[in-house]
């Protein structure tokens, strides 16, 4: 049994919202990914497998889903969506605001047909407000949400995070919002339309900069690793965050209590911050001939928060991720087995993550449309009209 067994989700989200359905599917929901007959845009997004064709972006965010195709731009397709939606608890979509209404399947209409439905819309800026119709990308969301401004060296342009953190953050936020609305429906019997904004999803992660600014008028600036310092070692870097006095005392003891750092004022975080130029050379010298993994192990044994800077291959292959099963082999396409991140959560000690590869376009058409009562003859007609 999984937590969301029995929850039926129709997932129209592309690129910016695909992780929402993946998270629901990981926890056991029956998620049906609906794409245009030509396949979703996100099937053409990097990164690609070495075959140059298989989008790993799509593969990871659509694992555990079933797949159907439907052309919403046709009247027949829109009517079929309306018919489908009656059979689901949740519909997730990420079209531009107003697109579904123009197809004749506005969220209000879907709710009129199925008042218990939760419709979750994930868009760059939300369904209202002056930016509603602005175009967005992951980079634009990361920028406007406020995470980009404090990333990168002070003397360089801000640098965006790898992956699609803005869009995936919206996916996580949407998964929470969807279950919140579903929980309310369990109590009231009523569904609703949920409006998730990528910009606001990212802004919610921006480290309380807004309340701090509203109090002090100050704005945080880009400063490399800043107070979360990176130190070079013999074979790379470690990050050491000496936040409280006992971290500092443990570090001094490890370094053999150098007299230059004996000033008790250094026990205060703000003093250390202001006098870093006095402190850092000693630390750098102490780490210079040690390997990053040895520095991390010894520091952690002494209660100092140090982590080694690992390259991607070192993340996949280290003793900790191996012991935890952080990655697992999964066939992403016929003959293409890769190591995939094995899931965000453990539930009662069991990993909840990708079990089944992402579907091909329309792979489950006969099955899913069959479940809502379409007969083979009707499906053939729809295929002939290129509606599915």
């Amino acid at each position, binding site marked *: 049994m999984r937590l969301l067994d029995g929850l039926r989700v129709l997932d129209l989200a592309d690129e910016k919202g695909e992780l929402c359905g993946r998270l629901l599917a990981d926890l056991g929901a029956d998620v049906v990914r609906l794409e245009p007959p030509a396949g979703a845009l996100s099937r053409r997004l990097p990164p690609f497998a070495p075959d140059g064709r298989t989008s790993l972006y799509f593969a990871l965010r659509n694992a555990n889903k079933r797949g159907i195709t439907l052309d919403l731009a046709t009247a027949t397709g829109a009517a079929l969506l309306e018919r489908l939606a009656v059979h689901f608890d949740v519909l997730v979509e990420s079209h531009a605001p107003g697109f579904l209404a123009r197809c004749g399947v506005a969220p209000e209409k879907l709710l009129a047909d199925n008042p218990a439905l939760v419709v979750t819309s994930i868009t760059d800026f939300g369904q209202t407000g002056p930016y509603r119709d*602005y175009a967005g990308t992951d980079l634009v969301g990361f*920028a406007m949400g406020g995470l*980009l401004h404090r990333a990168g060296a002070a003397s360089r342009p801000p640098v965006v995070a790898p992956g699609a953190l803005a869009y995936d953050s919206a996916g*996580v936020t949407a998964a929470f919002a969807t*279950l919140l609305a579903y929980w309310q429906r369990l109590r009231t019997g009523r569904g609703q339309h949920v409006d998730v904004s990528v910009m606001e999803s990212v802004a919610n992660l921006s480290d309380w900069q807004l309340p*701090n600014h509203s109090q002090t008028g100050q704005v945080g600036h*880009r400063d490399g690793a800043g107070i979360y310092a990176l130190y070079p070692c013999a074979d790379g870097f470690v990050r050491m965050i000496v936040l409280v006095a006992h971290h500092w005392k443990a570090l001094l003891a490890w370094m053999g209590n150098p007299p230059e750092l004996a000033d008790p004022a250094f026990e205060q975080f703000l003093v250390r911050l202001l006098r870093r130029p006095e402190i850092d050379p000693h630390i750098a010298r102490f780490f210079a001939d040690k390997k990053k993994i040895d520095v991390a192990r010894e520091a952690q044994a002494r209660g100092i928060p140090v982590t080694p800077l690992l390259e991607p291959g070192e993340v996949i292959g280290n003793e900790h991720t191996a012991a935890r099963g952080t990655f697992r082999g999964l066939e992403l396409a016929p003959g293409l087995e890769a190591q995939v991140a094995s899931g965000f959560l453990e539930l009662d000690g069991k990993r909840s993550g990708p079990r089944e590869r992402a579907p091909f376009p329309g792979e489950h058409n006969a099955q899913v449309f069959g479940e809502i009562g379409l007969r083979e003859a009707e499906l053939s007609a729809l295929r002939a009209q290129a509606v599915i």
Partner: protein
Amino acid sequence: MGQGEARPLSGLRVLDFGVGAVGVEVGRLFADYGADVIKVESGTAPDFMRAIIPGGMNASFASSSRSKRSLGVNVKTRRGLELVERLIRDSDVMIENNGAGVMERIGLGSERVRALNPRMVYFRSSLPGSRGPWSSWIGYGPSTHPVSGLQWLWNYPEDADRPAGSTNIFPDHLVGRLGAFAALAGLIARERSGRGVVAEAAQFEVAAQFLGDWFARESLAPGSVRPRGNASERGAPWGVYPCAGEDEWCAICVRSEAEWQGLRAELGDPEWARRPELATGLGRVRHRAEIDEHLVEWTRELPPHDVMRRLQARGIAAGVVAHAHHHLVDPHLAERGYHLLVEQKPLGTLVLEGPAFHGSALAEPVARPAPMLGEHTRELARERFGMSDAEIDALVAEGVLEEWKPEPPA
């Protein structure tokens, strides 16, 4: 927006043993939607977020513990632990993100909690996770960046040997949202099964999950995954461009032929943009450096919001690289009700982050001030333990309960 709706999580009782950001943000999201969230804490081991600035209250804490009540109790005393066990028996959700083994040593590990209350939905999170050779490692949000691959990849492509670094606490706030999602899923399942669940997220692992497609590629073609900076193979120009003003930037992404034509028109179709090698998407990606050189000449004369508005009017994805002041005065956020005001003693009026989503039948969050440590101890001891003031006074005197008292007026 849903007005006049009952808040969906009202009636749920949440015990928040969070520190820093992860657990604390889970509690905040539950409080936003009406749950009765009790921050269980003690001056003997205070949440470091309270302690970073003297006085026990700051804007970060005020945001992340909004609308909660604080119970000051020392669980290292036998009587204190008994009282918390009583709370556990009649609560629905418990949240913690302390280091490995901390809750077990107190006597409130997941096994014990489950024995006390089989219906408890227990969310816990730590940097390394509770299993594996590094499970005793400690750290903060930024400590996850190096071990998850995020740090090495979050860089300018030419600087792979010199980490760029960021001061974002990521992924703490996002793990908070993931935790709230997991806890809700646990509550939904409990409606059927009658049983609770222990949900766990290792923070470094969450950061790695978001890079899952890149790790898959690395496993298929070792060494092929490198820092990519702000560029994309999807198009050019694509990146972050300096604008007029100090440290002001605008992100611009040109994805299609139509958008390229729109950009050309907006720039007055300069000669460089008409060159045949820039006529195709592939050609523009190949000549991105050259395009960027020209585009910067245009952007650096204009404030970032002008660049954004002018390009968006042409259908081009463009957005200012926002900082907190931009968010404070942003007309879009204002219109969508993002600015949530709270009177927070002793700081004054604060603007908190509002919701990232709205629902047509969802009550909007209302923020109440975050509590001082032990501010609601007496209220909660009366309400949940049925204690008299004399009993409460005695437990405060013994150091079992901790109570905040306002400073007498000078």
